[in-house]
């Protein structure tokens, strides 16, 4: 069974009189353990696709089956549960809650899962360890560098042991060194078996993936492997940037 099976996803927005067709029929299958980069210029529909894959939004038509569950018809409450259990988000601007310690930020998904406080703390600490920030558990986001903040965000994404980590321009706000660190961290997690979907417009970043999906005007333009082995960096021209 494939992890993600999308069929004919269409998403139409209504902006007043105007109808914006952000997705015009996307069909896509992603297997567990893959690392996929979704690329495209702004307005290509990659953010809309990511919102639907992340269960933050539902398609206007088409089906999206995640681990055997058709999530395209679920209500808000069920979608929240799916997000909580199966999806970890990593955002461009980190999206940590300010004035709240790193550990508490990481605990947040467990909090909404209703886990006991002691379990929350233990799992959050383990997640922070995995991203190398165990010694920063009491730091507030403002006391951390951009790269550290993003690693806290990754810890938050993986604390629930999700099926997918959805990373939306995870390095967009970071310098090149921090970007490499973050990508190495994600790569490591992928090696440990977590499926990673990267949304990016940077070819350098897409190179970390082993499959690259190019989007344009709401449809998939190309979908091809980036290289034979994960972590091997293909030449730029092969990345299709």
């Amino acid at each position, binding site marked *: 069974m494939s992890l993600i099976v999308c069929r004919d996803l269409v998403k139409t927005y209504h902006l007043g009189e105007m109808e914006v067709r952000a997705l015009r029929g996307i069909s896509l299958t992603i297997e567990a353990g893959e690392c996929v980069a979704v690329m495209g210029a702004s307005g290509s529909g990659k953010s809309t696709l990511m*919102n639907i894959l*992340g269960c*933050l*939004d539902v398609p206007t038509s088409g089906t999206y089956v995640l681990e055997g569950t058709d999530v395209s018809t679920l209500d*808000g*409450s069920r979608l*929240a*549960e799916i*997000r*909580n*259990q199966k999806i970890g*988000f990593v*955002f461009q601007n980190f*999206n*940590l*809650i*300010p*004035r709240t310690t790193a550990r508490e930020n990481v605990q*947040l*998904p467990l*909090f*909404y*899962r*209703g886990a*006991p*406080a002691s379990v929350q703390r233990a799992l959050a600490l383990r997640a922070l360890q995995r991203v190398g920030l165990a010694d920063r558990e009491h730091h507030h986001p403002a006391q951390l560098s951009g790269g550290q903040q993003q690693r806290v965000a990754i810890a*938050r994404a993986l604390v629930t042991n999700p099926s997918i980590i959805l990373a939306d321009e995870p390095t967009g706000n970071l310098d090149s060194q921090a970007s490499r660190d973050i990508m190495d961290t994600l790569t490591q997690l992928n090696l440990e078996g977590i499926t990673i979907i990267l949304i990016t417009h940077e070819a350098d970043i897409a190179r970390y993936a082993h499959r690259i999906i190019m989007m344009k005007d709401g449809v998939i333009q190309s979908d091809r492997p980036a290289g034979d082995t994960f972590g091997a960096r293909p030449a730029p021209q092969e990345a299709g940037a």
Partner: protein
Amino acid sequence: MNFLLMTVLVAFRVLGRHRMRSVLTMLGIIIGVGAVIAMVSIGEGAKAAVQARIASFGTNVITILPGASTTTGVRTGHGGAVTLTTADMEELRKIPGVTDVGWARREAMQVIHENKNWFTTVNGVTPGYLVIRGWSTVSGDFFTQSDVDTAAKVALIGHTVAENLFGPGEDPVGATIRVRNMPFKVVGRLIAKGFDTRGSDQDDVVFIPFSTAERKVMGTRFLGSIGAGFLSAEAPEQMAPVVDEVKRVLRQRHRLRPNQDDDFTVRNQLDLAKAQEGASEEQSMFLLIVASISLLVGGIGIMNILLVSVTERTREIGIRMAVGAKRRHIVMQFLVEAGVLSAVGGLIGVGSGVASAKVVSQLRGWTPIFSPKVLVGAFIFSAIVGIVFGLYPAFKASRLNPIEALRYE
């Protein structure tokens, strides 16, 4: 439960982060609750004082005043005619439900003890009157039926009279005072009752046997005519039937035709209490309105600040939704914040209300009464106000689209 507890902790932290803002927001609730607590407590104290005054008149007392005869069309006031006699009162004693009967006549006159004198009201009374009015002595004793029978020259003196005729610490019992130039032996000094409901001093009084007053001190136009009659009923619920029966018996004894007005007036102590109750009910109503308005204002303040908070924390709400918060979690979070704000405000309000009632009472010599029901009620009500006014901001927060909220700058 776990979730709620943690939400409360988070709420305290969030509110603690904006301490000034939180306190200012709570101010409306604090002032509202504080003012209500202070006013109610002082009001309850005042009410209790009035009730004590009513009770000082005696319990379940029915007063019968003669007079208001209309035979010539000119109505005299109470006591204007000889229409109530000791014989009438002896007849009323037979009414079921009546426990004691007494009567009195009074006249204002000078009383003298050695080189001191005092102008007071001298009452000729029966022992029954003293029982009905709930008098008792601090020293000495009441005069007896035999004193009444023999028209003995004995007197009971009230607290005010004793203070004015005798030196401090001097026991008047056994002393001789002069009333209308006749020597009276003081047999008892009465307890202090204070002022009655009309504000006159109940202790500025001298009691002598009714017979003595009638025959030796005041004189009479008609032997056996009395100034006022008093009955006490067994229980409050018997007051009304006894009053009806008193009227019937007196009309019959006075041979009044059905179209004639009563030549007496019956007063019921309960009516007085009822009038007081009505006044205090109106007062409570007024207080309730004031309280509601101030809590309304406080609630609007909370709603306002929560709306600001929801806007400020749009991104946070988006993050929470992205990691799995359901709508109800978001609603709960903001409702709890509203509840914490108003409950803390209510708590401070209760405290400041109690404190200000105490301070004001101290300054003015009042005794406030703090009823736990009112304190707890005000606190709970203020918490509810916060939650009700938190509903709109909370729902607004929960309706945010997570995608837009995450992108909010």
